[in-house]
């Protein structure tokens, strides 16, 4: 039995020790916004935050999450996250959408550490998130847009 804090709520899960967090979130907690894409940390579709850092949940065993703050796409609440999601919507970034939870989790983590990223920062921070529809140009633009909006003085 493991105790996990996910999106601010405490859950008890009875799973094997080697179960990746991805499958705890999806199969045990019904949080299906986090996606399976590769299982080997090569695509980023399963990106979540542990204590604010983006990680691939498909290769992270459940035990790693114990005692830490886990955030999934369903639990995004910050001002930065709202700005990122608004920018995504404004630019109609999504196509098939399957990778976009992971893209947004990585983008939010980037802006939390670096409020005004340049293109090279985006290449690095988003380099682990594949998009087969190749929405990359709009992802880049949406990150810049969110950064700009967040830098504006609040009315």
């Amino acid at each position: 039995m493991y105790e996990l804090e996910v999106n601010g709520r405490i859950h008890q899960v009875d799973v094997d020790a080697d179960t990746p967090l991805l499958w705890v979130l999806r199969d045990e907690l019904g949080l299906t916004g986090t996606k399976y894409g590769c299982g080997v940390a090569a695509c980023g579709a399963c990106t979540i935050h542990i204590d604010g850092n983006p990680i691939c949940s498909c290769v992270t065993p459940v035990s790693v999450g114990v005692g830490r703050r886990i955030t999934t796409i369903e639990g995004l609440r910050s001002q930065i996250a709202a700005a990122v999601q608004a920018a995504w919507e404004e630019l109609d970034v999504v196509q098939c959408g399957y990778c976009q939870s992971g893209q947004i989790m990585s983008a939010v983590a980037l802006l939390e550490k670096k409020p005004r990223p340049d293109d090279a920062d985006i290449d690095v921070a988003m380099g682990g998130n594949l998009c087969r529809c190749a929405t990359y140009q709009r992802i880049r633009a949406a990150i810049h847009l969110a950064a700009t909006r967040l830098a504006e003085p609040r009315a």
Partner: protein
Amino acid sequence: MSAAWIENASRRRFLKAGSGLALAIYLPLNAAAKTQPERSFAPNAFVRIGEDDTVTVIVKHLEMGQGTYTGLPTLVAEELDADWAQIRVEGAPANTALHGNLLLGKIQGTFGSTSLANSFEQFRRAGATARAMLVAAAAERWQVPAASIGVAGGVVSHAPSGRTARFGELAAAAAELPLPNKVDLKNPADFVLIGKGVKRKDSRAKIDGSAQFTQDVRLPGMLLALVAHPPWFGARAKRFDAEKTRAVRGVVDVVAIPSGVAVLATNFWAAKKGRDRLKVEWDASAAFGQCTHDIVDEFRGLLEQPGRIARSEGECAAALDAAAHRLVADFEFPYLAHAAMEPLNCVVRLDANGCEIWNGEQFQTADQMAVAAVTGLAPEQIKLNMLYAGGSFGRRASSKADYLVEAVHIAKAIGGRAPVKLMWTREDDMRGGYYRPMYVHRLEAGLDRDGALVAWQHRIVGQSIAAGTVAESLMVRDGVDRLSVEGAIDLPYAVPNLRVDLHSPQLGVPVLWFRSVGSLHTAFAIETFIDELAAKASQDAVAFRRRLLAQQPRHLGVLELAAAKGDWGRPLARGAKGERRGRGIAVHQCFGSVVAQVVEVTVRADRSFKVDRVVCAVDCGLAVNPDIVRAQMEGGIGFGLSAALHGRITLREGIVEQFNFTEYPILRMNEMPRVEVHIVASAAPPSGVGEPATPVIGPALANALFAASGERLRQLPLRFDQAPSAWGWHAGAATPLHEGCTQEDRPCSPSVA
């Protein structure tokens, strides 16, 4: 827990929709039907207007990213004069008579970039009909002439009296009226949504994680199934030992099915661990066991012999012999995996009365037939729920319904005692076949003394996609699969002597259509060869094409637009020390649309290269949603670039050598060039946008690489320093395994020992 979760999810979606905050997506479960308004007005199969004022558009095509859940509702909303915010979207059920693809005969399916084109009049008419009936209902209620009533932004109004009504207030009355005999469609000058651009209907749900993909479906009591597939195509399980599998907590059953051995469990991880512990002995006696280099050699041999004629004009052989200059070039294209981000999956519930399937459903007609054949049910007893697909690129329109049939076999094998979700892991998806076929091409052309093109001979060798499938009768004529030669048989360049012929060798590797299908290889060969001919004739690549395209105004239109916007003929900014830069162009028509692209590339000192900028011009007829057209050009370019830079599935003794994105890389953020899209203004009916950008980037890039380096690359993926003789078709290159083969780093072993 599952049932409760489903109920809650459905309710949440309905409430959101009702309050106008967000869009309802497809509600996949029967429980969800309860949440529809008690009374609604549904004048046809495509529109339903609720008393709560929502307008639900029933979309017959799969939303897999291309924007059809926005495009088709736009057509309805336009003619209905609805407010875009009141529009909801629902996926259509399987019903070929009602929801068939009007461009493809008696078939319900989503392919050929036809969604908008085939629906353009049908969905506008559906909206116009609903509007006429709402107006008639208002006219009756207010006792005024229908002609004096207007509709705008979802409000029906009678200006002289100042009376207004929302759609929902009129829905019940409209439902009692007879269908109008005839409705008029708007004059395009009066469009307020079409051509102006509305926001995507699926954005919010895909941004907040609530969008339901097949991967996310949970039914009460559902079991999760993974299948141990044989490592070779055509092999079968002889016997298996599941003792260790059954010992895994959560594993419920292990069953043999025709395509392998299925492990059923209460969750994915248990099924995965169970499958890892399964021992299967395979019967490979009928398996395909060739290496890809063997296949290339065989195909190259066929290049020396005439194939079946796909098109013949004039006297090609004689004209080639008589030409002042004669050029020949061979091209090689590997197998490609679709590798959509959502690996293949589907959910099946099977009982005595029928079979219900949840799937990113792309080919209803074929899937119903295939599942009917396996279950003994009638096709109409197969209920198909169409969910969002996390990409497809053709793979979910499986010509043999392979993964649906597999899931149904599993459900059958356990006697239908639980719903089954079949999941393929990434490795299953990558290694499971149904690839874009390998092709080898030879192009031969003659120029006269003035550099004019006098003869063109195009020979293509590769497996037929349609032969032996439901698509055969539609696509294969006189032994020529149109899907193998499209783009080549409709060569746009004026040439008096033309021959296109085809060899379609049969191999045991399952193949399938792949975004832009035949054009992905034919456009590469044609557009890079035209570039060679222009160079041979000492002419500018645009000027050379311009002369040959005099009778092709749409090609000329995009060519000139791309050239102008892409600074064609102007010097490129210099690269850093040791870098060489180049610009290339290509143009191609497919799926009714014409696309031209100008590519700028930088070749580094180590001969790696970076695509810097792509300027794309598209003529797709009327652009119903210009922003989605731009998105499809951007994405189509990125997808085509991924194939051009990385895409390659290889076989060693029949075993697929790629496992995951680690061996089959796809385009990443840092490789995506800056893309600028320019849309030709057009009043012609809309044509496809999902596929036409994809085949153009490869040849435009190869031409740019030539401009930078002076070298012609004719093998995909594009690499410098890959001489044909050294090209083993194997990832990595080290110790020879056997003659012609090379050993790669990763031991090639079956996925299941």
